[in-house]
């Protein structure tokens, strides 16, 4: 039989009924779960702290820049999409193509960082600190905690990029890129909740 080692066609895969399989390393997934848990508790803590002082939170929230936040959402989603394409390319044995997609993903991630830095510069200029109000505390804590994850994610993406340049990954060696990709998607996932919760919900 001449099946390709790795098929991209979902229906064909259904027919052969592949065994359920976790893409990426168990170690990174345990880490991702721990991170999600920490973020989850933090986000929920925000929601309940807000419920105790809706007017105060809503007033401070007006000061946030939703346009920048939305652009950042688009950047992260697009970056995640590029990472998916990179993973697909590696699965198809095209490491060179994968590194191209990864450059795109890193570019989007850097765009996020730049916009965020401008946002922070403006906020710090306006006297927003971890101690200026409860809303500001949550806004800074949540976004900065997330921001640091973006930075770590970028380091991981850079390592993946290097790996694709050195052709370290391939259809038979997906563990590294799948693990890194899963981590980057987690960063995206958290932002998808964080953005509407902190920037928009009122």
């Amino acid at each position: 039989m001449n099946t390709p080692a790795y098929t991209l066609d979902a229906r064909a895969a259904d027919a052969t009924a592949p065994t359920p399989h976790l893409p990426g390393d168990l170690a990174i997934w345990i880490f991702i779960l721990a991170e999600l848990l920490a973020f989850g508790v933090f986000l929920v803590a925000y929601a309940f702290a807000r419920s105790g002082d809706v007017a105060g939170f809503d007033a401070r929230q007006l000061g946030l820049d939703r346009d920048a936040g939305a652009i950042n959402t688009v950047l992260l989603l697009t970056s995640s999409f590029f990472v998916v394409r990179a993973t697909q390319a590696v699965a198809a044995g095209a490491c060179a193509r994968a590194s191209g997609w990864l450059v795109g993903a890193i570019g989007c991630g850097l765009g996020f960082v730049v916009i965020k830095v401008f946002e922070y510069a403006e906020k710090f200029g306006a006297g927003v600190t971890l101690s200026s109000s409860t809303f500001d505390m949550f806004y800074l804590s949540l976004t900065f905690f997330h921001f640091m994850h973006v930075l770590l994610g970028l380091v991981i993406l850079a390592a993946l990029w290097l790996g694709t340049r050195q052709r370290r990954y391939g259809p038979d060696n997906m563990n590294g890129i799948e693990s890194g990709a899963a981590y980057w998607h987690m960063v995206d996932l958290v932002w998808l909740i964080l953005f509407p919760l902190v920037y928009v919900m009122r």
Partner: protein
Amino acid sequence: MSGTFTKAMARNVFYGGTVFFFLLFIALTFDTMQGLPKSDNRAAITPAVAAGKHVWETRNCLGCHTLLGEGAYYAPELGNVYKRRGPEFIKAWIQSMPSNTPGRRQMPQFNLTDKELDDLVEFLKYTSEINTQNWPPNIEG
């Protein structure tokens, strides 16, 4: 369980995660150091307060008492004792120890000089004015 679990990845996650969270801790520490002047009552630190802290430490007061809730739980909290009892009571109390009441907990006699007593009270005054987020819940500590 079907899936991959490699030692190399577990190691990378350990080092990455540890460095990441330590850096985060450093960042928070940096912010705390920036914010402390607002809450730690440093403006009130005088040579007398410094000398008082020295008296506090060299008599191992923390071996029985708590100070801002930290120490031993054998004797009352002293972070707010200045507000609870006032300076004269504190000095008189220290000088009258031990009570020698049979069966009661005893505080040693430290034979502090008048200056040492004053310094210690200054230290306790400074401590009582630190912004502790309203802890303890009431004056009893």
